[in-house]
């Protein structure tokens, strides 16, 4: 099961909770210190910035080592190449276990890089295009499912958890596809059903004490299942997938059979997410719903031109700005347990001053013309700015 000692991870949780309580001035400095002493954490977790650096360097190191091994095993022999790749994957995994057990690496950048490299090397080795016979899609999905499930269980890694979910859905998709026309017809509903089932199971499981170390992976699964539940019923997705994958050959402008069901689903589901997100005060539901509302707008605009794009943009802009303004005014004093005040968690974005970088990015000044181009006079080129500035 999980690679780190369960007690240490629990202690880490306790320390984070204590730090939170300290930030809200609920406990004193001395109490925080005694809690830290009583529940020590000996994991190596560097600062997020260093983590990124370690991740990049580990990737460089692993990639060059793999290249070196493959050079010596010989590129001409398919079997040797395959063996070399699998060998590298196993070595990666071995180093990962060593780093975790002896060096106590936890969220350090090194363990993520090693885990992802090990998974991808092993899967490449296993699924290698052997004697020019490409493995079937089902085989690929099954191998990926197996590898990512093992990786998730052992290291509670979020990316691996996403891999589990996607390969599972792919596997189900491929199985249903084998039923022929009936399969194609019920496909959206099968995927929706599976997503809903997984969402419900995960939402229940996340509260269980036994799964506490997998909380982040489970949260990611909740978000993913909400998204696939919506996408499987989205009119645009259903129409375009049927068109390209199932050879429906619809002319532009023509709808799919039973299209009205999907139109209803397209519009209703995000609103349902928003509604239950607000009712249950669930940030995952609320934020996913918000993002999916933009998907509704996109889908409707794709098939029905209600208004020219600029008018729609202006109207939507006025509505959103006005709505946000009204909400800020409304929540000036907290109502029904909602507030506009920032949550107490110190956010990573703040410490990196991300916002100012984003502003600098969205604002891109044109460079002044280099001197040698100035001879053309004022009319050409346009030195100051283009129209969209």
């Amino acid at each position, binding site marked *: 099961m999980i690679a780190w000692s369960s007690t240490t991870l629990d202690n880490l949780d306790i320390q984070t909770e204590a730090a939170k309580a300290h930030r809200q001035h609920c406990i004193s400095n001395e109490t925080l210190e005694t809690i830290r002493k009583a529940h020590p954490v000996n994991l190596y977790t560097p600062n997020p910035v260093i983590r990124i650096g370690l991740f990049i360097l580990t990737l460089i190191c692993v990639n060059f080592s793999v290249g070196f091994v493959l050079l010596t095993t010989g590129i001409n022999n398919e079997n040797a190449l395959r063996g070399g790749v699998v060998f590298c994957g196993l070595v990666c995994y071995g180093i990962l276990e060593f780093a975790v057990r002896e060096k106590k690496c936890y969220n350090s950048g090194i363990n993520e890089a090693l885990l992802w490299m090990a998974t991808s090397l092993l899967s490449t080795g296993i699924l290698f295009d052997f004697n020019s016979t490409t493995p079937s899609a089902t085989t690929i999905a099954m191998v990926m499912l197996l590898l990512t499930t093992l990786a998730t269980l052992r290291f509670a890694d979020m990316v691996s958890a996403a891999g589990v979910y996607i390969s599972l859905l792919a596997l189900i998709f491929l199985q249903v596809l084998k039923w022929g026309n009936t399969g194609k017809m019920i496909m959206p509903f099968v995927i929706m059903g599976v997503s809903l089932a997984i969402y419900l199971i995960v939402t229940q499981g996340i509260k269980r004490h036994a799964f506490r170390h997998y909380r982040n992976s489970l949260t990611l699964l909740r978000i993913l299942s909400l998204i696939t539940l919506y996408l499987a019923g989205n009119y645009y997705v259903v129409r375009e997938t049927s068109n390209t994958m199932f050879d429906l050959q619809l002319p532009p402008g023509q709808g799919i059979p039973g299209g009205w069901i999907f139109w209803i689903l397209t519009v209703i589901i995000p609103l349902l997410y928003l509604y239950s997100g607000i009712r249950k005060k669930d940030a995952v539901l609320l934020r996913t719903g918000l993002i999916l509302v933009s998907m509704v707008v996109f889908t409707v605009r794709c098939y029905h031109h209600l208004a020219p794009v600029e008018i729609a943009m202006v109207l939507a802009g006025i509505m959103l700005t006005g709505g946000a303004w009204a909400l800020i005014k409304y929540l000036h004093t907290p109502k029904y347990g909602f507030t506009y005040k920032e949550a107490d968690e110190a956010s990573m974005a703040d410490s990196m001053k991300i916002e100012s970088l984003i502003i600098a990015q969205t604002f891109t*000044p044109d460079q002044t013309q280099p001197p040698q181009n100035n001879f053309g006079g004022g009319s050409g080129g346009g030195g100051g700015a283009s129209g969209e500035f």
Partner: protein
Amino acid sequence: MNIDTFSKLQKEGLISEEEMQRITTAENNRLFSLHWEIKTILYLGVLLLSGGLGILVYKNIDTIGHQVILLFIALVCIGSYVYCFKHRPPFSHEKTVSPNTFYDYALLLGSLTFVTFIGYLQFQYTAFGTAYGLATFIPLVVLFFTAYYFDHLGILSMAITNLAAWAGIAITPMQILSKNDFSNQTLIYTGIALGAALVLLAELSARRNFKSHFAFTYNNFGVNIFFISALAAMCIFDSPIYMLWFLLIAGAGYRCYTWAFRDRSFYFALLSVLYMYFGLSILIFRLLFSIRNDDGFILALFYTICSAIAVILLLINLNKKIKQ
């Protein structure tokens, strides 16, 4: 906060009755924050509105006429600035707290429309003739003034990118590598000078304690543009001049490293280590390939593997050292 965790801690005798009481009250009165959601909606709304209006104007330019549009832009700009002047906190050398969310956005809108106004004027009427520099210089001055007077980090970033554009370089995070032609020597010298100047500005703001929270932004742009230009120089200059550039990188990297330690900044420590490492790697690759052509490749491979491990160990050490 998790009440179960704390009741367990209380049983262990680690927190007192009173503290437990406070935690329970805080947790029971905890509010669900919609801050992130509302801010996102607001930003999206502003983005859609300005984009939509832009297209609307663009499509109807024949019926509206340029003067009307210019007038409109000017009005929006003046309106925003007037709002900000009315609501601004008193000027201070320290960081000031913005009165509300709208204030920040109004300031942003005002600055953006001002830049648009000048750009429009130049594009349509070539108001500044062929003095292209002037068309970016005026916004530059206004942006810096706005950033300092109203204390806005976002506008400071805009001002710095504008300064770089005036000098002929693109330094927005996504374009610094894609838009610049680093085989151009003038660009490299400009980049080095600009980077050094920005770092100097950061040092000055911190030392004189004049808006010292701006130092990070100055440093961030300055350090990156400086090292990227110097690394580009190491790639394009002929032997043996590129070795001089390596010395420059090593010196500047050492300076950056000591400053990072002084300020306990993980970010700049990482930057200095990585940039110095890349500089050293370029030096070694060029040496290897010029001396031994045949085995150079294998040696370079070996060098990369070993040096990457060495830098990983160095970073781990560094992290421990800064934390102390």
